Structure formats: C-alpha cells, structure tokens
C-alpha cells in the first residue's frame, strides 16, 4: 500500500528500477541460451529450485485480478487496498523465478522449441508484471486503469500458457491428453487411448533387444528416471515414445529418432547415451537396426532374423515371461462343437478327460487311472472327440492292438502313453497318421526292435520310451532315432 504510493511519486525512477532486472534476464536469455548440456554445479543446483519457486508468482498473479474484481463490491472494498502489495510480491517472485528458470534451462541439459517458448513466456510475463505494477502506481492517471486491466488480462493468459508449456517439459508433451477418456478425446479429434503394447515372451524383442536397453539406457530412461519422458524398460514404453513423440519408425531404422541418436558421433549434442557412458557397440546397433527394419514388432519370433552379428553381450539376456489373456468368446466358439460330447464323456468317465487348459479346446485323456477297468471297447466312446485329444495316457489299462484304429484316429496327439499294456508293434504301425506325436511311451510292452523303423514316419518325435521291452541297449538304432530312444 505504502509501496504503491511511494512509487507513484518517483514514477520515472521506478521505470528505471524495473527496467534493470528485465534487461538482465533478457540479456541472459538472448546471449546464453539453453544449450542442451549439463553445466556448472552451482548454477544447476540453484536452477533446480525453479519448479518449486515458480508456483508462488503463478498463484500471486492470479490472485491480483481476483482482489481487484471482488474489491469492486462495497462489502469487499478493503481487498483492493492489498492488491498493490500482492502484485509487488508477484513481480518480485516472477523475477526470481525467471532468473532461476534461466539457470535451470542453461545448465540442466535442456534444449528445443518447448524450452525456448516456455522461457520467453516467462520473461514476457515478468515484464508484464513490472508494467502492471507501475500502472498500479499510476492508477489515478487518465486511462491508466484501462491499461492496467489489459495488462492483468495479458498476465493471466501468459501464466496459463507458460505454465502449460512448463508442464509439458516436466510431464511430457501429452500430459493433459494422455489419459483423457475416449469421449473427450473424440471431441478434440484425438485417436483412442491405447494401452501399453506387450512383447511376447519368446519374441526377438524380449530375448535380444530389451537386454540392450536394460544394460545401457534404463538408468536414465526407466522406472526411476524418465529423461525426456522416455522409458525403455519395456516394449510398451518404448513404443509410446517420449515427450517429443515416437522414437521408432517401424521398418525404418534410419528414420527412427532412437536409432539416429545412438548412431551419431559421440561429440554431437543429440548423441545417446549421454555423459561418460559407453556408446552402444556395433553388434548391438546392428541388432537394433535389423529389428526396427523388420517392423519393430513385439511378436516377431526370436529366430526370425537370420545372419545376426556374433556378439556375446546379448546372449545372457533376462527372459521375460508374459501371460496371455484368455479370450473367453474364442474359447467357447472353439469348444462349441464338442462341448456336448465332452459333457457326456465326463459323466460316463469322471475325472479322466478334460481340456488341456482354460484357453484351449484340446483335450487330455488319462485312462491310466481306471487301470484294467478300461479296455478297447471303452475307447470307442471317445471317437467323436478323437481329433481334439492331444495327450492320451493308456498306461496299465487293458487295451490291446484292437485299440489301434481308435488311437490312430487321434491325429493331433502330441503325447501317447501305452506303458505296461498288451499292445505290440501292430499298434505302432497304425500310428502313421499321428504325425504330431512328440512323445511315445511303450515302456513294459511287447514292442520289439521291428517297430523302430516305423517311427521314422513321425517327424516331430522327440522321445520314444521303450524301457523293459525287447528293445535293449545293445540294439542298432536308426540314425533318426539316436538321442530320442530312452531305455
């Protein structure tokens, strides 16, 4: 209040007084702009207070028009008395915040259009504050009140705009729209919100690429720090990009910002990784380049890219396991045709037949639990679902070679166990059609070495369990079966 009136007396002096800090900041901003390099400790330390201090002038500047407007009502007229003081405080705070902002921008490793805009917004705002304060002192002059009102309006607009830009710097360019609900997004013409994508567990990305980022990038671009709003600790974050948008262009390594930066010469400003960290070695660069070139997909199988560069550094990658969601509608559809037959069979043979998993229409049959109570005749009942059975265990049941056609009808079998049954080579002969078979168990049966050549017709066979049969260790084994025969 008193401040206002004293300034009113020395109006030209006050212009001079206000001119010097503005001049100082403008000079600093013009001649020592942000360079994107991390700089002097002290300056940066002081600069780090910018985000803290900056909220004072924001609040104070917004308070002034409130005091002025509400103070026009007689009941609150006393409020107008303090508006000059608040404005003065706001001006001082804005000046300090602008100075701190320059400190941070100059030394904190910032650069780019966003920072420049935010900075000039701040500088202009400081100047507008000073102007308003001076006008506040001249309020009795003709037209001064008009200019004063206009100045405050400009100030409020500047606060909003500069604040938004600042938010974009610290929170990412899309910090307002990122989690905006779909209806609102549509209203302002944005596409739907996309949840984070996931790479599959055995994908090229999960097995090979992620390890490189984990080793070299995530200390700054990870869960603890997200420089430039970028995280590289999962496929989803990588594809979401940073505050400047996407860092990858699918299929175009050279056009991808991430690849461009890690392949620059280390003395360039944009080069990554920053500081004293080792550049990404050539074999890993090649790997990333090939992966982006192949479409940068999270589902690309790990062996999809041939002629990879040799390099030990990628072998010991941690392998992430993901859990696919079960698509209930798809499962119900796949099971539709057999569901009635399954229910009937489960009723007749409780506990021995079930789906392989909650998400599948494949079946597991374990008749071994019924022992000799299960025979050739019972097997006929499973004919309607035969081609859905992938695992079948008939160990210790009463089945004989007469079951062979029923077993052969199970063309999708992966695992077949016939241990300790009366089956012979004739059943093995009938298994030609079961070309998905990976594991065949004839432990303790009458199967002989004559069955061995028949197995060559089973392309996927990995294990042939033939202990306690006429097949004994000394026997000559066909080339294809070496390593698969278990005795």
């Amino acid at each position, binding site marked *: 209040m008193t401040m206002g009136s004293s300034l009113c007396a020395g109006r030209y002096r006050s212009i001079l007084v206000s001119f010097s800090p503005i001049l100082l900041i403008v000079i600093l901003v013009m001649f020592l702009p942000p360079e994107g390099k991390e700089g002097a400790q002290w300056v940066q330390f002081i600069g780090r207070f910018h985000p803290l201090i900056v909220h004072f002038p924001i609040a104070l500047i917004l308070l002034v028009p409130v005091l002025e407007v509400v103070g026009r009502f007689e009941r609150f007229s006393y409020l107008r008395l303090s508006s000059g003081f608040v404005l003065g405080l706001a001006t001082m705070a804005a000046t300090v915040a602008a100075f701190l902002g320059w400190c941070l921008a100059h030394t904190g490793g910032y650069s780019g259009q966003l920072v420049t805009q935010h900075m000039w917004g701040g500088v202009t705002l400081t100047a507008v504050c000073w102007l308003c304060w001076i006008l506040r002192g001249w309020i009795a002059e003709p037209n001064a009140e008009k200019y004063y009102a206009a100045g405050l309006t400009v100030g409020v607009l500047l606060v909003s705009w500069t604040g938004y830009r600042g938010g974009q710097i610290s929170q990412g360019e899309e910090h307002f729209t990122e989690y905006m609900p779909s209806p609102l997004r549509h209203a302002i013409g944005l596409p739907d919100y996309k949840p984070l994508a996931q790479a599959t*567990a055995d994908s090229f990305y999960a097995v090979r690429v992620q390890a490189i980022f984990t080793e070299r990038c995530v200390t700054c671009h990870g869960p603890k720090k997200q420089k430039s709003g970028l995280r590289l600790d999962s496929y989803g974050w990588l594809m979401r990009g940073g505050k400047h948008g996407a860092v990858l262009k699918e299929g175009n390594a050279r056009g991808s910002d991430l690849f461009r930066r890690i392949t620059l010469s280390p003395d360039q400003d944009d080069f990554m990784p920053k500081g004293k960290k080792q550049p990404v070695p050539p074999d890993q660069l090649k790997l990333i380049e090939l992966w982006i070139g192949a479409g940068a997909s999270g589902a690309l199988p790990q062996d999809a890219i041939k002629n990879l560069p040799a390099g030990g550094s990628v072998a010991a990658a*941690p*392998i*992430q*396991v993901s*859990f*696919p969601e*079960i698509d209930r509608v798809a499962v119900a559809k796949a099971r539709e045709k057999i569901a009635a037959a399954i229910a009937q069979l489960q009723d007749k043979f*409780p*506990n*021995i037949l*079930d*789906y*392989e*998993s*909650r*998400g*599948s229409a*494949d079946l*597991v049959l*374990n008749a*071994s*639990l019924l022992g000799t109570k299960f025979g050739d005749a019972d097997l006929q009942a499973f004919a309607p679902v035969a081609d859905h059975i992938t695992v079948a265990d008939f*160990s*210790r049941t009463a089945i004989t070679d007469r079951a062979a056609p029923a077993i052969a009808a199970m063309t999708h079998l992966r*695992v077949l*166990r016939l*241990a300790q049954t009366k089956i012979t080579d004739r059943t093995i002969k009938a298994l030609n059609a079961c070309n998905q078979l990976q*594991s065949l*168990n004839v*432990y303790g049966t009458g199967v002989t070495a004559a069955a061995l050549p028949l197995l060559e017709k089973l392309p996927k066979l990995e*294990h042939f*369990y033939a*202990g*306690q049969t006429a097949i004994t260790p000394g026997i000559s084994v066909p080339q294809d079966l070496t390593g698969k025969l*278990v*005795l």
Partner: protein
Amino acid sequence: MANSELQVAILQAQTRRHFLRSLGSGMGSLVFGASLANYAAANESQAEKSTLSFARNATTPLSPLPPQFPAKVRRVIYLHMAGAPSQLELYEYKPELKRLDGQDCPASFLAGKRFAFISGVPKLLGSQYPFKQTGQSGQWISDRLPHIAEHIDDICFIKSMRTDQFNHAPAQLLVHTGNPRLGYASFGSWVLYGLGTENQNLPGFIVLLSGGKSPDGGKQLWSSGFLPSVYQGVQCRSHGEPVLYLNNPPRVDRALRRTMLDAIDDIDRQTHAEFGNPETVTRIAQYEMAFRMQMDATDAMDISKEPESVRTKYGCKPAGAEFANNCLVARRLAERGVRFIQLYHWGWDSHGADAKEALNLGFADRCREVDQPTAALLADLKERGLLEDTLVVWGGEFGRTPMRENRNGQEMKYIGRDHNPGAFTIWLAGGGVKHGITHGQTDEMGYEIVQNPVDIRDLHASMLYMLGFDHHKLTYSFQGLEQKLTSVKPARVIGEILA
C-alpha cells in the same frame, strides 16, 4: 452351492475391509433393501470376468480342473532337505574359499549381519569334500553325491536362491507357504485348489517324512491355511497302514463299514440341511474318500509289490521311515496321478555342535541316505517317461556360511557352518525346466549372490507357471484380499530356466 450355503460363505468372507468399503457404496443398497446375497452375487459375476473360477461341486472338492495355460508339468515331487544342507559341501565349488581356509573372516562379511550362533571373528572354512566336473554340461558337484552326479545333465541348478528368514521354522514356512508366518496355504494346497487331482481314490497332496524327526515348521508346512481344509496335505506312512486307522478294525468288514458310513452320512446330511455349514459337506466327502482309499492307498504305498531289482536300485530298507522307501513310494504315487508329493528328510542342520551335526560325520550320512534314492527316482521317472511332465525339486530352506561356526566365540570340536539366508542352492529337474544348466552365481566365497538373485516367491511363481498358472490369477478371497501364494510383493517368473 445351495442358497443357504452361499450365504454362509458370503458371511464368512465378510471382513472389516468389506464393511468399511460398503459404508460408502453399500449404504444406498441397504436403504433400498437390496439383499446382501444379491450384492455379493453381483460382485462375484463381475470378478468372474477378470479372475479364474475354482468353483466345484461341494461333494467333489478335489475334482480336476484344467490349468489356465497348457501346463509343462502335471505333478510335483518336492524333496525338502529340512535343516538347510550346506551348498558349499554339495554344489558350490569355491576354490578361493578352500585357499583361504582357516584364515580370519574379513570384517566386511560380518558388518551388519545377524547369525544364529557365530560370534566374534570366525575362521573361513573351505569345502570339506573334493569336487569334480561331470556330465556333458561340465558342472561341478561334490564327491558326496556320486549317484546324483550321474544325472547332472538332467538338473537345473539355481545357485542364487535367497530368503529373508534365518531360523528353520519361519524359513521352511516361507519355502512352503510363501510366507514366514503361520496360517498361510502351502504350495501343495494351492496346486490342489487350482488343479484338483485326477485320482479320487487317493489324496491329491501326500506328505512323507524321514530322517527321524518332523521338520521344524511342523504340520503347518503342508497346511491348507485359509484354503478349505480339504486341500491340506495328508501325511502318510511308508510302511504299515499308510494312514492310521484307515483299515477296518478286527471283525469289521467292508460291508459293515459301508453301512456305518451310510448312517453317518445320513446324520451329516441332516446337520447340513439344518445349519448349512459347507465343512459338513467336506466331512462327508472325506469319509467317502477314506472308504475308497482303503483299497487304493494301501496298494499305492506298498513297495513290497515292486520287484527286488527296483528296490535295490533305490536302496530300500525292509521297513521304516526311510528316504529311499519314500522315494519309491513317490514314484508309485506319481504313476497313480497324485498331484503333489512332498518328501521331507530331516537332519541337515550341520552346525557342528555334535557328531550328528558335523559336516565331516553326520552330514556325510545324510548324503548317503538321499544320494542313491534321489538318483534312482530321477532314473526311474525318466525310464518310465514320467519325468517329462513331473517337476522334481530338491533343496533346503536357506544356505550355510562360508565361515566355520564358532559357538560362543570358541573353536568347536566338530566342524560346522552357521545359517546363511543370503545365498543357497536348490535344483529342479523334469518337465518345464532346462536341463544341465546353472542359473545365478555367488561370490568367490559362496557368501553373497553376485548374479540373478532368486527370491522364494520367484521360484514359486516359476513353479506355478510350469503347472500352467499365472501366479496373479491363482487366488482365493480371504480377509478382504485376493490371497495368492506369492503374497503381495512382485514375483518374477524365471524365464531363463524355463524349457
């Protein structure tokens, strides 16, 4: 479930959390007179979308259910070495420790550490037994385990296990229930709850003890905790009656037993109609199972039905609670579709306080007791094609120190090591895991993990994964939480060891 039962179940599930939550959202519904059952039913159908249902008919609580994903293994044989066997005498080859044997332990090893018995400055202690490299994978193993060494290419070692418990009972609880405190469901109970069991004439979760004593954690280690009691482990004996009082007493035949059970069933059903307690239905189911077990369990546990050659391979003794006998029983149970077979062998707590606990004496006996049977079990499972969908786990509850124990700061008569929760070794074999590999690494002294630490919950999550589950989805509502085996801390499936 009948409506009355549903209401009982809902009331049992009500907790302070539910009450507080319903203060906000539930007041309106109470005012409008919506019944509690409707409210809960609505919640349930909503939950159905995101979680898996493990609902079963009340009279067949153990009926099999498919896993969430196609499973790599369909059953587990867990060989727990109670007392914490010394990894430094078995699997951890540390020549540098051997070189420094007898020297004072560096101060950095002791700063900020708590020990059960070590005090003052202990001496470093090199391995008491020679090691050799073996198998195609060229892994190191001590000369105490010559039979297991033959299977080294079937084994996946995790040498970087760690725990946060350094006393036996809580550490064993952590290994078996995912929590060091009492009242939580054991791994076997979770598996039984999630998958049920195929053979309804045998318990789905069987526990066999050897080594002369029960593990320190006691029956809590195979308890069902907050899960319905029907999922708890059933402790069986490997000679005589498998379950005490299972067989009919003299002058009672099977027909008379049936008549008696029918009468009890009648009364139970009346009680159930009157009070609607689901535990009554469980009881009816248990009586029926015991009746069926009279035939099948006695047969499954009877190792005299195995040929002499097989019993010799395992090193079985005619009678007694021997680890060898239990291993052979385990194989017979695996064949018969038992879901979870848990063996405990007691006596590995090698402090060196007496001859039985000495690394150079009692420890060697323990090795002899388990080496041949463990190897025979692996060989037998492999030969019969069972190993491809069985997971075998071998390990204790924590590790042992590279320092020699010096109880009360004095050199002891026998050689022993203190507890080390910071690093220990377990191994896995069978379907689901890579063969002939080692995951994780400790420092040159075998004291601290330097690469790929594995927490118990990571191991549990990985085992559940092999059994076809996402550990987040195998849950049970209790005390306002969706309880799970891996508890609330994030657990990681160890992708590196999966086949």
